[in-house]
Protein backbone atom coordinates (compact mmCIF):
# COMPACT_ATOMS: atom_id res chain seq x y z
CA UNK A 1 0.00 0.00 0.00
CA UNK A 2 2.37 2.58 1.10
CA UNK A 3 5.28 1.47 -0.95
CA UNK A 4 3.96 0.53 -4.32
CA UNK A 5 0.98 -1.45 -5.47
CA UNK A 6 3.23 -2.47 -8.30
CA UNK A 7 5.12 -4.68 -5.91
CA UNK A 8 2.25 -7.05 -5.88
CA UNK A 9 1.20 -6.85 -9.46
CA UNK A 10 3.34 -9.48 -11.10
CA UNK A 11 5.02 -7.55 -13.84
CA UNK A 12 3.03 -9.00 -16.66
CA UNK A 13 1.87 -6.46 -19.18
CA UNK A 14 -1.01 -8.61 -20.31
CA UNK A 15 -2.39 -8.81 -16.84
CA UNK A 16 -1.77 -5.13 -16.30
CA UNK A 17 -3.81 -4.29 -19.31
CA UNK A 18 -6.47 -6.66 -18.14
CA UNK A 19 -6.69 -5.03 -14.77
CA UNK A 20 -6.30 -1.40 -15.60
CA UNK A 21 -7.27 -0.86 -19.18
CA UNK A 22 -10.24 -3.07 -19.37
CA UNK A 23 -12.83 -0.82 -17.91
CA UNK A 24 -11.73 1.82 -20.37
CA UNK A 25 -12.56 -0.25 -23.37
CA UNK A 26 -16.26 -0.38 -22.72
CA UNK A 27 -16.81 3.39 -22.76
CA UNK A 28 -17.29 5.92 -25.49
CA UNK A 29 -14.23 8.06 -26.08
CA UNK A 30 -15.08 11.35 -24.43
CA UNK A 31 -16.53 9.66 -21.42
CA UNK A 32 -13.35 7.72 -20.99
CA UNK A 33 -11.55 10.83 -19.86
CA UNK A 34 -14.35 12.57 -18.05
CA UNK A 35 -15.66 9.70 -15.98
CA UNK A 36 -13.34 10.64 -13.20
CA UNK A 37 -15.26 13.80 -12.44
CA UNK A 38 -18.28 12.08 -10.90
CA UNK A 39 -15.77 9.88 -9.13
CA UNK A 40 -14.59 12.91 -7.22
CA UNK A 41 -18.06 13.33 -5.88
CA UNK A 42 -18.05 9.81 -4.59
CA UNK A 43 -14.61 10.34 -3.12
CA UNK A 44 -15.67 13.41 -1.23
CA UNK A 45 -18.63 11.49 0.11
CA UNK A 46 -16.39 8.65 1.21
CA UNK A 47 -14.10 10.90 3.21
CA UNK A 48 -16.98 12.75 4.72
CA UNK A 49 -18.78 9.66 5.88
CA UNK A 50 -15.70 7.96 7.19
CA UNK A 51 -14.91 10.89 9.38
CA UNK A 52 -18.44 11.51 10.52
CA UNK A 53 -19.73 8.01 10.82
CA UNK A 54 -16.89 6.01 12.24
CA UNK A 55 -15.81 7.76 15.41
CA UNK A 56 -18.18 7.32 18.31
CA UNK A 57 -17.90 10.88 19.35
CA UNK A 58 -17.29 13.40 16.59
CA UNK A 59 -17.59 16.18 19.09
CA UNK A 60 -14.77 14.76 21.16
CA UNK A 61 -12.53 15.21 18.16
CA UNK A 62 -13.60 18.70 17.36
CA UNK A 63 -13.55 20.30 20.76
CA UNK A 64 -10.77 20.88 23.28
CA UNK A 65 -11.02 18.71 26.39
CA UNK A 66 -12.09 21.59 28.55
CA UNK A 67 -15.35 22.13 26.73
CA UNK A 68 -18.59 22.34 28.70
CA UNK A 69 -21.88 20.76 27.63
CA UNK A 70 -23.10 24.16 26.63
CA UNK A 71 -20.10 24.52 24.33
CA UNK A 72 -20.85 21.13 22.88
CA UNK A 73 -24.45 22.11 22.14
CA UNK A 74 -23.47 25.44 20.66
CA UNK A 75 -20.87 23.95 18.36
CA UNK A 76 -23.19 21.14 17.34
CA UNK A 77 -25.77 23.61 16.20
CA UNK A 78 -23.25 25.96 14.67
CA UNK A 79 -21.69 23.19 12.61
CA UNK A 80 -25.08 21.80 11.73
CA UNK A 81 -24.17 18.44 13.18
CA UNK A 82 -27.63 17.95 14.55
CA UNK A 83 -28.94 17.63 11.05
CA UNK A 84 -28.96 14.23 9.30
CA UNK A 85 -25.64 13.25 7.81
CA UNK A 86 -26.63 13.38 4.13
CA UNK A 87 -27.83 16.92 4.69
CA UNK A 88 -24.54 17.78 6.32
CA UNK A 89 -22.77 16.36 3.31
CA UNK A 90 -24.94 18.40 1.02
CA UNK A 91 -24.09 21.58 2.86
CA UNK A 92 -20.41 20.79 2.89
CA UNK A 93 -20.45 19.93 -0.77
CA UNK A 94 -22.30 23.09 -1.65
CA UNK A 95 -19.70 25.12 0.12
CA UNK A 96 -16.87 23.14 -1.34
CA UNK A 97 -18.04 23.84 -4.85
CA UNK A 98 -17.76 27.49 -4.04
CA UNK A 99 -14.28 26.95 -2.81
CA UNK A 100 -15.15 27.16 0.84
CA UNK A 101 -13.83 24.17 2.68
CA UNK A 102 -14.58 25.46 6.11
CA UNK A 103 -12.32 26.77 8.80
CA UNK A 104 -9.56 25.02 10.64
CA UNK A 105 -10.15 24.24 14.24
CA UNK A 106 -6.71 25.16 15.37
CA UNK A 107 -6.47 28.67 14.06
CA UNK A 108 -9.93 29.46 12.76
CA UNK A 109 -8.48 30.44 9.40
CA UNK A 110 -10.10 29.45 6.15
CA UNK A 111 -8.97 26.07 4.93
CA UNK A 112 -8.89 26.78 1.23
CA UNK A 113 -6.30 29.55 1.21
CA UNK A 114 -4.03 27.53 3.48
CA UNK A 115 -4.18 24.60 1.11
CA UNK A 116 -3.67 26.75 -1.94
CA UNK A 117 -0.62 28.34 -0.37
CA UNK A 118 0.99 25.01 0.37
CA UNK A 119 -0.04 23.26 -2.83
CA UNK A 120 2.56 24.63 -5.26
CA UNK A 121 5.41 23.29 -3.13
CA UNK A 122 3.93 19.82 -3.27
CA UNK A 123 3.16 20.06 -6.97
CA UNK A 124 6.69 21.10 -7.69
CA UNK A 125 8.00 18.17 -5.72
CA UNK A 126 5.65 15.76 -7.47
CA UNK A 127 6.68 17.06 -10.86
CA UNK A 128 10.37 16.68 -10.14
CA UNK A 129 9.87 13.28 -8.60
CA UNK A 130 7.83 12.05 -11.55
CA UNK A 131 10.33 13.39 -14.01
CA UNK A 132 13.29 11.78 -12.30
CA UNK A 133 11.34 8.59 -11.81
CA UNK A 134 10.45 8.35 -15.48
CA UNK A 135 14.02 9.04 -16.50
CA UNK A 136 15.41 6.35 -14.22
CA UNK A 137 12.62 3.91 -14.87
CA UNK A 138 12.57 4.15 -18.62
CA UNK A 139 16.32 4.45 -18.82
CA UNK A 140 16.79 1.43 -16.60
CA UNK A 141 14.27 -0.61 -18.54
CA UNK A 142 15.89 0.17 -21.84
CA UNK A 143 19.31 -0.57 -20.42
CA UNK A 144 18.25 -3.92 -19.03
CA UNK A 145 16.63 -4.78 -22.32
CA UNK A 146 19.51 -3.67 -24.46
CA UNK A 147 21.88 -5.88 -22.49
CA UNK A 148 19.48 -8.74 -21.99
CA UNK A 149 21.06 -12.03 -21.23
CA UNK A 150 24.16 -10.39 -19.82
CA UNK A 151 25.27 -9.55 -16.33
CA UNK A 152 24.16 -5.98 -16.72
CA UNK A 153 20.58 -7.10 -16.94
CA UNK A 154 20.96 -9.17 -13.80
CA UNK A 155 22.55 -6.26 -12.01
CA UNK A 156 19.75 -3.91 -12.96
CA UNK A 157 17.19 -6.47 -11.86
CA UNK A 158 18.85 -6.89 -8.48
CA UNK A 159 19.08 -3.15 -7.91
CA UNK A 160 15.46 -2.98 -8.90
CA UNK A 161 14.36 -5.63 -6.45
CA UNK A 162 16.11 -3.89 -3.62
CA UNK A 163 14.71 -0.49 -4.52
CA UNK A 164 11.21 -1.83 -4.76
CA UNK A 165 11.40 -3.33 -1.32
CA UNK A 166 12.45 -0.20 0.48
CA UNK A 167 9.67 2.36 0.90
CA UNK A 168 10.24 5.95 -0.12
CA UNK A 169 10.32 7.42 3.33
CA UNK A 170 13.03 5.01 4.36
CA UNK A 171 14.94 5.88 1.25
CA UNK A 172 14.60 9.50 2.25
CA UNK A 173 16.03 8.74 5.66
CA UNK A 174 18.82 6.64 4.22
CA UNK A 175 19.66 9.39 1.81
CA UNK A 176 19.77 11.87 4.64
CA UNK A 177 22.03 9.60 6.62
CA UNK A 178 24.29 8.76 3.78
CA UNK A 179 24.41 11.69 1.43
CA UNK A 180 23.30 14.43 3.77
CA UNK A 181 25.08 13.64 7.00
CA UNK A 182 27.70 11.14 6.01
CA UNK A 183 28.97 12.59 2.78
CA UNK A 184 27.66 16.10 3.40
CA UNK A 185 26.99 16.48 -0.30
CA UNK A 186 23.47 17.85 -0.35
CA UNK A 187 21.31 19.76 2.10
CA UNK A 188 18.23 18.18 3.56
CA UNK A 189 16.34 20.72 5.59
CA UNK A 190 13.83 23.08 4.13
CA UNK A 191 13.59 24.46 0.65
CA UNK A 192 16.28 27.09 0.66
CA UNK A 193 19.49 27.84 2.44
CA UNK A 194 18.95 29.93 5.51
CA UNK A 195 19.01 33.57 4.74
CA UNK A 196 17.83 33.35 1.13
CA UNK A 197 14.37 34.56 0.28
CA UNK A 198 12.51 34.69 -2.99
CA UNK A 199 9.49 36.93 -3.58
CA UNK A 200 6.33 34.87 -3.98
CA UNK A 201 4.90 35.25 -7.47
CA UNK A 202 3.49 31.90 -8.51
CA UNK A 203 4.16 29.87 -5.43
CA UNK A 204 6.46 27.52 -7.33
CA UNK A 205 9.84 28.23 -5.85
CA UNK A 206 11.85 27.34 -8.94
CA UNK A 207 9.71 29.50 -11.18
CA UNK A 208 9.78 32.38 -8.74
CA UNK A 209 13.56 32.23 -8.49
CA UNK A 210 13.88 32.40 -12.25
CA UNK A 211 11.41 35.25 -12.45
CA UNK A 212 13.30 37.17 -9.82
CA UNK A 213 16.56 36.50 -11.62
CA UNK A 214 18.04 35.19 -8.40
CA UNK A 215 20.27 32.36 -9.61
CA UNK A 216 21.90 31.78 -6.29
CA UNK A 217 18.49 31.06 -4.87
CA UNK A 218 17.65 28.89 -7.85
CA UNK A 219 20.77 26.83 -7.34
CA UNK A 220 20.05 26.51 -3.64
CA UNK A 221 16.48 25.49 -4.32
CA UNK A 222 17.63 22.85 -6.78
CA UNK A 223 20.11 21.44 -4.34
CA UNK A 224 17.48 21.24 -1.64
CA UNK A 225 15.09 19.62 -4.05
CA UNK A 226 17.56 16.97 -5.14
CA UNK A 227 17.30 14.52 -2.26
CA UNK A 228 13.53 14.66 -1.79
CA UNK A 229 12.86 14.37 -5.51
CA UNK A 230 15.27 11.47 -5.74
CA UNK A 231 13.64 9.71 -2.81
CA UNK A 232 10.27 10.21 -4.44
CA UNK A 233 11.51 8.95 -7.77
CA UNK A 234 12.58 5.72 -6.13
CA UNK A 235 8.92 5.05 -5.63
CA UNK A 236 8.08 4.84 -9.31
CA UNK A 237 11.34 4.10 -11.07
CA UNK A 238 11.63 0.40 -10.10
CA UNK A 239 8.14 -0.69 -11.15
CA UNK A 240 8.42 1.36 -14.34
CA UNK A 241 11.71 -0.25 -15.14
CA UNK A 242 10.31 -3.67 -14.48
CA UNK A 243 7.22 -3.24 -16.59
CA UNK A 244 9.08 -1.69 -19.48
CA UNK A 245 11.64 -4.44 -19.43
CA UNK A 246 9.11 -7.24 -19.34
CA UNK A 247 6.85 -5.56 -21.91
CA UNK A 248 9.74 -5.28 -24.29
CA UNK A 249 10.62 -8.91 -23.71
CA UNK A 250 7.01 -9.84 -24.38
CA UNK A 251 6.80 -7.70 -27.49
CA UNK A 252 9.81 -9.46 -28.91
CA UNK A 253 8.04 -12.79 -28.69
CA UNK A 254 5.14 -11.47 -30.72
CA UNK A 255 4.58 -12.35 -34.35
CA UNK A 256 4.82 -8.84 -35.65
CA UNK A 257 8.40 -8.54 -34.49
CA UNK A 258 9.48 -11.70 -36.30
CA UNK A 259 7.47 -10.63 -39.34
CA UNK A 260 9.28 -7.29 -39.31
CA UNK A 261 12.61 -9.06 -39.02
CA UNK A 262 11.70 -11.28 -41.94
CA UNK A 263 11.08 -8.16 -43.97
CA UNK A 264 14.66 -7.23 -43.34
CA UNK A 265 14.16 -4.32 -40.94
CA UNK A 266 17.12 -3.48 -38.73
CA UNK A 267 17.07 -4.32 -35.03
CA UNK A 268 17.14 -0.65 -34.08
CA UNK A 269 14.16 0.08 -36.21
CA UNK A 270 12.25 -2.86 -34.81
CA UNK A 271 12.96 -1.73 -31.26
CA UNK A 272 12.01 1.87 -31.71
CA UNK A 273 9.20 1.77 -34.22
CA UNK A 274 7.53 -1.50 -33.37
CA UNK A 275 8.38 -2.87 -29.97
CA UNK A 276 8.58 0.34 -27.96
CA UNK A 277 5.28 1.61 -29.21
CA UNK A 278 3.58 -1.51 -27.95
CA UNK A 279 5.56 -1.69 -24.74
CA UNK A 280 4.55 1.87 -23.98
CA UNK A 281 0.98 0.84 -23.31
CA UNK A 282 1.43 -1.19 -20.15
CA UNK A 283 4.14 1.22 -19.02
CA UNK A 284 1.79 4.18 -19.17
CA UNK A 285 -0.85 2.11 -17.39
CA UNK A 286 1.64 1.41 -14.65
CA UNK A 287 2.43 5.08 -14.39
CA UNK A 288 -1.22 5.76 -13.80
CA UNK A 289 -1.40 3.12 -11.12
CA UNK A 290 1.71 4.47 -9.44
CA UNK A 291 0.40 8.01 -9.42
CA UNK A 292 -1.28 7.58 -6.09
CA UNK A 293 1.89 6.15 -4.56
CA UNK A 294 3.97 9.10 -5.65
CA UNK A 295 1.42 11.62 -4.50
CA UNK A 296 1.03 9.83 -1.20
CA UNK A 297 4.76 9.67 -0.84
CA UNK A 298 5.02 13.43 -0.74
CA UNK A 299 3.27 13.41 2.58
CA UNK A 300 6.15 11.87 4.45
CA UNK A 301 8.89 13.24 2.26
CA UNK A 302 7.75 16.75 3.00
CA UNK A 303 7.67 16.01 6.71
CA UNK A 304 11.13 14.51 6.71
CA UNK A 305 12.73 17.21 4.64
CA UNK A 306 10.79 20.06 6.17
CA UNK A 307 9.03 21.28 3.03
CA UNK A 308 5.96 23.47 3.65
CA UNK A 309 3.64 21.57 1.35
CA UNK A 310 0.24 20.00 1.93
CA UNK A 311 1.94 16.94 3.39
CA UNK A 312 3.22 18.91 6.33
CA UNK A 313 -0.20 20.50 6.65
CA UNK A 314 -1.78 17.08 6.76
CA UNK A 315 0.54 15.74 9.42
CA UNK A 316 -0.15 18.72 11.62
CA UNK A 317 -3.88 18.51 11.02
CA UNK A 318 -3.90 14.87 11.96
CA UNK A 319 -1.99 15.49 15.10
CA UNK A 320 -4.52 18.16 16.02
CA UNK A 321 -7.56 16.19 14.87
CA UNK A 322 -8.49 19.17 12.74
CA UNK A 323 -11.44 17.67 10.91
CA UNK A 324 -12.21 20.31 8.29
CA UNK A 325 -8.56 20.53 7.40
CA UNK A 326 -8.23 16.78 7.09
CA UNK A 327 -11.29 16.64 4.89
CA UNK A 328 -10.09 19.40 2.66
CA UNK A 329 -6.65 17.90 2.32
CA UNK A 330 -7.95 14.40 1.66
CA UNK A 331 -10.08 15.82 -1.10
CA UNK A 332 -7.11 17.68 -2.50
CA UNK A 333 -5.07 14.52 -2.63
CA UNK A 334 -7.86 12.69 -4.36
CA UNK A 335 -8.20 15.45 -6.93
CA UNK A 336 -4.47 15.29 -7.60
CA UNK A 337 -4.58 11.54 -8.17
CA UNK A 338 -7.58 11.84 -10.46
CA UNK A 339 -5.91 14.59 -12.44
CA UNK A 340 -2.81 12.51 -13.06
CA UNK A 341 -4.98 9.53 -13.98
CA UNK A 342 -6.95 11.60 -16.42
CA UNK A 343 -3.73 12.53 -18.14
CA UNK A 344 -2.60 8.92 -18.37
CA UNK A 345 -6.03 7.90 -19.65
CA UNK A 346 -5.73 10.47 -22.39
CA UNK A 347 -2.24 9.32 -23.28
CA UNK A 348 -3.41 5.71 -23.42
CA UNK A 349 -6.21 6.71 -25.74
CA UNK A 350 -3.71 8.34 -28.03
CA UNK A 351 -1.37 5.39 -28.07
CA UNK A 352 -3.81 2.51 -28.24
CA UNK A 353 -6.01 2.57 -31.32
CA UNK A 354 -8.10 -0.26 -29.92
CA UNK A 355 -9.48 2.05 -27.25
CA UNK A 356 -10.36 4.73 -29.76
CA UNK A 357 -12.33 2.82 -32.29
CA UNK A 358 -15.21 0.48 -31.47
Amino acid at each position, binding site marked *: *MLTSPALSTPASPGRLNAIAGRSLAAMPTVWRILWRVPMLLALAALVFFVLRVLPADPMGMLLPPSATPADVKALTEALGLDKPIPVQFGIWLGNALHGDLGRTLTSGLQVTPLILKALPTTLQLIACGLLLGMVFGIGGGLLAFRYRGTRIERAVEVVNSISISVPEFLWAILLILGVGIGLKLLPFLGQLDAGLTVPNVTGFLLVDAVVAGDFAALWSALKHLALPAFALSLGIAPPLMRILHSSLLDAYTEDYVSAARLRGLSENRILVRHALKNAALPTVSMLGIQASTVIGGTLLIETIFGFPGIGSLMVNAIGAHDLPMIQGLALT*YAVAVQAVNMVTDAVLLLLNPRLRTP
Partner: protein
Amino acid sequence: MSSLALSAPAPLRRVLGEPRVVIGVGLLLLLIALAVFAPWLAPHAPNEQDLLNTVLPPAWAPGGDRSFPLGTDALGQCILSRLIYSTRVTVIIALTAPLGAALLGCTLALIAGYRGGRIEWAILRMVDLWMSFPAIVLALVLMVALSPGLLNVIVAIILVDWTRFCRVIRADVVVLRRKDYVAAARITGASHWQVVMKDIVPGILPTLISLISLEMGISVVAESILSFVGMSVEPNVPTWGVMIADGLKSVFSSPWGLIAPVGCTVLTVLATTCLGDGLRRTTDPRLFNRSGT
Protein backbone atom coordinates in the same frame (compact mmCIF):
# COMPACT_ATOMS: atom_id res chain seq x y z
CA MET B 1 -10.12 -38.83 -2.05
CA SER B 2 -6.44 -39.60 -2.03
CA SER B 3 -5.25 -40.20 -5.53
CA LEU B 4 -8.26 -38.36 -6.84
CA ALA B 5 -7.41 -35.31 -4.79
CA LEU B 6 -6.50 -32.13 -6.60
CA SER B 7 -2.80 -32.48 -5.95
CA ALA B 8 -0.51 -30.19 -7.87
CA PRO B 9 2.36 -31.70 -9.78
CA ALA B 10 4.70 -29.00 -8.51
CA PRO B 11 6.00 -30.75 -5.42
CA LEU B 12 6.52 -28.95 -2.18
CA ARG B 13 10.14 -29.91 -2.57
CA ARG B 14 10.56 -27.59 -5.49
CA VAL B 15 9.09 -24.68 -3.58
CA LEU B 16 11.26 -25.30 -0.57
CA GLY B 17 14.31 -25.78 -2.73
CA GLU B 18 14.20 -22.27 -4.13
CA PRO B 19 16.83 -20.21 -2.29
CA ARG B 20 14.67 -17.12 -2.16
CA VAL B 21 11.97 -18.98 -0.32
CA VAL B 22 14.43 -20.38 2.14
CA ILE B 23 15.93 -16.99 2.90
CA GLY B 24 12.55 -15.37 3.27
CA VAL B 25 11.11 -18.06 5.49
CA GLY B 26 14.28 -18.19 7.54
CA LEU B 27 14.26 -14.49 8.32
CA LEU B 28 10.60 -14.57 9.18
CA LEU B 29 11.08 -17.46 11.54
CA LEU B 30 13.88 -15.50 13.15
CA LEU B 31 11.53 -12.58 13.68
CA ILE B 32 8.92 -14.82 15.23
CA ALA B 33 11.50 -16.30 17.53
CA LEU B 34 12.62 -12.85 18.60
CA ALA B 35 9.05 -11.85 19.27
CA VAL B 36 8.24 -14.91 21.33
CA PHE B 37 11.44 -14.97 23.33
CA ALA B 38 11.77 -11.20 23.71
CA PRO B 39 11.68 -11.13 27.52
CA TRP B 40 14.61 -13.52 27.67
CA LEU B 41 16.61 -11.99 24.87
CA ALA B 42 16.33 -8.30 25.62
CA PRO B 43 18.70 -6.90 28.27
CA HIS B 44 16.11 -4.42 29.59
CA ALA B 45 12.40 -3.76 29.59
CA PRO B 46 11.49 -1.69 26.56
CA ASN B 47 10.00 1.22 28.43
CA GLU B 48 12.52 1.32 31.22
CA GLN B 49 13.86 4.82 31.24
CA ASP B 50 17.27 5.65 32.56
CA LEU B 51 17.42 9.41 32.51
CA LEU B 52 21.02 9.46 33.57
CA ASN B 53 22.13 7.62 30.46
CA THR B 54 20.30 9.29 27.61
CA VAL B 55 21.48 9.23 24.01
CA LEU B 56 24.35 6.89 24.63
CA PRO B 57 26.30 5.55 21.66
CA PRO B 58 26.55 1.79 21.07
CA ALA B 59 28.75 -0.36 23.31
CA TRP B 60 31.69 -0.43 20.91
CA ALA B 61 31.87 3.35 20.47
CA PRO B 62 33.64 5.66 22.93
CA GLY B 63 31.32 6.54 25.78
CA GLY B 64 29.25 3.44 25.28
CA ASP B 65 28.07 1.18 28.01
CA ARG B 66 28.13 -2.62 27.96
CA SER B 67 24.68 -2.92 29.40
CA PHE B 68 23.25 -0.93 26.51
CA PRO B 69 24.63 -2.79 23.48
CA LEU B 70 23.16 -0.42 20.91
CA GLY B 71 23.01 2.63 23.10
CA THR B 72 19.98 4.52 24.36
CA ASP B 73 17.54 7.02 23.00
CA ALA B 74 16.53 10.46 24.23
CA LEU B 75 14.62 9.00 27.19
CA GLY B 76 17.36 6.60 28.17
CA GLN B 77 15.53 3.54 26.88
CA CYS B 78 17.70 0.70 25.63
CA ILE B 79 17.62 0.65 21.87
CA LEU B 80 18.35 -3.04 21.49
CA SER B 81 15.58 -3.98 23.89
CA ARG B 82 13.11 -1.74 22.14
CA LEU B 83 14.20 -3.22 18.86
CA ILE B 84 13.58 -6.74 20.04
CA TYR B 85 10.25 -5.97 21.67
CA SER B 86 9.13 -4.16 18.53
CA THR B 87 9.23 -7.44 16.69
CA ARG B 88 6.06 -8.39 18.53
CA VAL B 89 4.03 -5.72 16.86
CA THR B 90 5.75 -6.46 13.58
CA VAL B 91 5.00 -10.16 13.73
CA ILE B 92 1.40 -9.71 14.78
CA ILE B 93 0.74 -7.28 12.01
CA ALA B 94 2.65 -9.26 9.41
CA LEU B 95 0.71 -12.38 10.23
CA THR B 96 -2.79 -10.97 10.59
CA ALA B 97 -3.19 -7.99 8.28
CA PRO B 98 -2.30 -9.79 5.05
CA LEU B 99 -4.64 -12.64 5.83
CA GLY B 100 -7.47 -10.26 6.55
CA ALA B 101 -6.86 -8.22 3.44
CA ALA B 102 -6.57 -11.41 1.40
CA LEU B 103 -9.82 -12.75 2.78
CA LEU B 104 -11.73 -9.60 2.07
CA GLY B 105 -10.14 -8.95 -1.29
CA CYS B 106 -10.39 -12.54 -2.48
CA THR B 107 -14.00 -12.95 -1.52
CA LEU B 108 -15.01 -9.85 -3.39
CA ALA B 109 -12.78 -10.80 -6.31
CA LEU B 110 -14.36 -14.23 -6.58
CA ILE B 111 -17.83 -12.77 -6.46
CA ALA B 112 -17.00 -10.10 -9.00
CA GLY B 113 -15.07 -12.33 -11.36
CA TYR B 114 -17.41 -15.28 -11.25
CA ARG B 115 -20.78 -13.58 -11.30
CA GLY B 116 -19.91 -10.79 -13.66
CA GLY B 117 -22.54 -8.33 -14.76
CA ARG B 118 -23.72 -5.54 -12.48
CA ILE B 119 -22.15 -6.97 -9.36
CA GLU B 120 -18.76 -7.01 -11.02
CA TRP B 121 -19.25 -3.47 -12.22
CA ALA B 122 -20.20 -2.28 -8.75
CA ILE B 123 -17.28 -3.97 -7.05
CA LEU B 124 -14.84 -2.67 -9.63
CA ARG B 125 -16.13 0.86 -9.22
CA MET B 126 -15.72 0.51 -5.48
CA VAL B 127 -12.15 -0.63 -5.97
CA ASP B 128 -11.50 2.30 -8.29
CA LEU B 129 -12.92 4.64 -5.70
CA TRP B 130 -10.82 3.20 -2.95
CA MET B 131 -7.66 3.29 -4.99
CA SER B 132 -8.16 6.90 -5.92
CA PHE B 133 -6.84 7.92 -2.57
CA PRO B 134 -3.16 7.65 -1.93
CA ALA B 135 -2.97 4.76 0.49
CA ILE B 136 -1.24 6.79 3.14
CA VAL B 137 -3.93 9.40 3.15
CA LEU B 138 -6.68 6.82 3.41
CA ALA B 139 -4.90 5.01 6.19
CA LEU B 140 -4.37 8.19 8.13
CA VAL B 141 -7.97 9.23 7.73
CA LEU B 142 -9.05 5.82 8.98
CA MET B 143 -6.75 6.03 11.96
CA VAL B 144 -8.07 9.45 12.82
CA ALA B 145 -11.53 8.00 12.76
CA LEU B 146 -10.65 4.86 14.67
CA SER B 147 -8.12 6.19 17.16
CA PRO B 148 -4.77 4.53 17.86
CA GLY B 149 -4.48 0.89 18.87
CA LEU B 150 -3.02 -2.33 17.52
CA LEU B 151 -6.35 -3.79 16.48
CA ASN B 152 -7.31 -0.59 14.75
CA VAL B 153 -4.04 -0.53 12.86
CA ILE B 154 -4.75 -4.00 11.56
CA VAL B 155 -8.27 -3.02 10.61
CA ALA B 156 -7.00 0.09 8.85
CA ILE B 157 -4.42 -1.85 6.86
CA ILE B 158 -7.03 -4.41 5.86
CA LEU B 159 -9.44 -1.72 4.78
CA VAL B 160 -6.82 0.00 2.68
CA ASP B 161 -5.04 -2.92 1.07
CA TRP B 162 -7.89 -5.26 0.19
CA THR B 163 -8.24 -3.45 -3.11
CA ARG B 164 -4.89 -4.65 -4.31
CA PHE B 165 -5.88 -8.26 -3.78
CA CYS B 166 -9.26 -7.72 -5.31
CA ARG B 167 -7.98 -6.22 -8.52
CA VAL B 168 -5.28 -8.74 -9.24
CA ILE B 169 -7.22 -11.81 -8.20
CA ARG B 170 -10.31 -10.71 -10.10
CA ALA B 171 -8.30 -10.55 -13.30
CA ASP B 172 -7.14 -14.09 -12.67
CA VAL B 173 -10.66 -15.27 -11.89
CA VAL B 174 -11.97 -13.82 -15.13
CA VAL B 175 -9.31 -15.68 -17.09
CA LEU B 176 -10.04 -18.92 -15.31
CA ARG B 177 -13.78 -18.59 -15.62
CA ARG B 178 -13.44 -18.48 -19.38
CA LYS B 179 -11.52 -21.72 -19.52
CA ASP B 180 -13.39 -24.64 -20.92
CA TYR B 181 -12.75 -26.77 -17.88
CA VAL B 182 -14.98 -24.53 -15.82
CA ALA B 183 -17.78 -25.07 -18.32
CA ALA B 184 -16.93 -28.77 -18.30
CA ALA B 185 -17.21 -28.85 -14.53
CA ARG B 186 -20.65 -27.29 -14.76
CA ILE B 187 -21.89 -29.78 -17.27
CA THR B 188 -20.64 -32.69 -15.22
CA GLY B 189 -22.95 -31.59 -12.49
CA ALA B 190 -20.83 -29.45 -10.20
CA SER B 191 -22.64 -26.66 -8.40
CA HIS B 192 -21.33 -23.11 -8.63
CA TRP B 193 -19.80 -23.45 -5.20
CA GLN B 194 -17.98 -26.64 -6.17
CA VAL B 195 -16.69 -25.08 -9.36
CA VAL B 196 -15.32 -22.12 -7.47
CA MET B 197 -13.71 -24.22 -4.78
CA LYS B 198 -12.30 -26.97 -6.96
CA ASP B 199 -11.48 -25.32 -10.24
CA ILE B 200 -11.05 -21.63 -9.67
CA VAL B 201 -9.53 -21.29 -6.23
CA PRO B 202 -6.68 -23.72 -6.92
CA GLY B 203 -5.92 -21.66 -9.97
CA ILE B 204 -5.60 -18.42 -8.04
CA LEU B 205 -3.65 -19.91 -5.15
CA PRO B 206 -0.18 -19.26 -6.57
CA THR B 207 -0.91 -15.60 -7.14
CA LEU B 208 -2.64 -15.34 -3.79
CA ILE B 209 0.23 -16.84 -1.86
CA SER B 210 2.74 -14.57 -3.46
CA LEU B 211 0.54 -11.54 -2.88
CA ILE B 212 0.13 -12.45 0.78
CA SER B 213 3.84 -12.70 1.33
CA LEU B 214 4.40 -9.37 -0.38
CA GLU B 215 1.65 -7.86 1.71
CA MET B 216 3.48 -8.90 4.85
CA GLY B 217 6.27 -6.52 4.00
CA ILE B 218 3.86 -3.85 2.92
CA SER B 219 1.90 -3.98 6.15
CA VAL B 220 5.07 -3.74 8.22
CA VAL B 221 6.00 -0.62 6.30
CA ALA B 222 2.46 0.68 6.65
CA GLU B 223 2.63 0.38 10.38
CA SER B 224 5.94 2.13 10.55
CA ILE B 225 4.62 5.01 8.49
CA LEU B 226 1.64 5.33 10.77
CA SER B 227 3.93 5.26 13.80
CA PHE B 228 6.09 7.88 12.20
CA VAL B 229 3.13 10.22 12.04
CA GLY B 230 2.09 9.23 15.51
CA MET B 231 -1.14 7.50 14.54
CA SER B 232 -0.33 3.89 15.16
CA VAL B 233 -0.48 1.72 18.24
CA GLU B 234 -0.93 2.75 21.83
CA PRO B 235 1.66 5.21 23.08
CA ASN B 236 3.68 2.85 25.24
CA VAL B 237 4.12 0.06 22.76
CA PRO B 238 7.47 0.13 21.00
CA THR B 239 7.52 -0.23 17.24
CA TRP B 240 10.20 0.32 14.69
CA GLY B 241 8.28 3.23 13.24
CA VAL B 242 8.19 5.01 16.57
CA MET B 243 11.89 4.35 16.96
CA ILE B 244 12.54 5.85 13.55
CA ALA B 245 10.55 8.95 14.38
CA ASP B 246 12.40 9.36 17.66
CA GLY B 247 15.71 8.54 16.10
CA LEU B 248 15.25 11.16 13.43
CA LYS B 249 14.93 13.81 16.05
CA SER B 250 18.26 12.99 17.63
CA VAL B 251 20.01 11.90 14.47
CA PHE B 252 22.97 14.23 14.97
CA SER B 253 23.77 13.04 18.46
CA SER B 254 23.24 9.34 18.04
CA PRO B 255 22.53 8.04 14.56
CA TRP B 256 22.32 4.47 15.83
CA GLY B 257 18.90 5.14 17.22
CA LEU B 258 17.84 5.64 13.63
CA ILE B 259 20.04 3.19 11.79
CA ALA B 260 18.98 0.18 13.83
CA PRO B 261 15.20 0.33 13.25
CA VAL B 262 15.65 1.42 9.65
CA GLY B 263 17.93 -1.53 9.05
CA CYS B 264 15.49 -3.93 10.65
CA THR B 265 12.57 -2.63 8.62
CA VAL B 266 14.53 -2.82 5.40
CA LEU B 267 15.67 -6.36 6.14
CA THR B 268 12.16 -7.48 6.94
CA VAL B 269 10.73 -6.03 3.75
CA LEU B 270 13.56 -7.52 1.71
CA ALA B 271 12.85 -10.90 3.28
CA THR B 272 9.17 -10.80 2.42
CA THR B 273 9.83 -9.54 -1.11
CA CYS B 274 12.33 -12.33 -1.57
CA LEU B 275 9.82 -14.83 -0.30
CA GLY B 276 7.05 -13.53 -2.51
CA ASP B 277 9.31 -13.53 -5.53
CA GLY B 278 10.48 -17.04 -4.84
CA LEU B 279 6.96 -18.33 -4.33
CA ARG B 280 5.82 -16.73 -7.53
CA ARG B 281 8.60 -18.32 -9.52
CA THR B 282 8.02 -21.81 -8.19
CA THR B 283 4.27 -21.80 -8.51
CA ASP B 284 3.92 -19.97 -11.79
CA PRO B 285 1.42 -21.87 -13.93
CA ARG B 286 3.44 -21.18 -17.04
CA LEU B 287 6.20 -23.30 -15.61
CA PHE B 288 3.52 -25.71 -14.55
CA ASN B 289 2.54 -26.78 -18.03
CA ARG B 290 6.05 -27.52 -19.09
CA SER B 291 6.63 -29.95 -16.25
CA GLY B 292 6.37 -33.66 -16.74
CA THR B 293 6.87 -35.78 -19.81
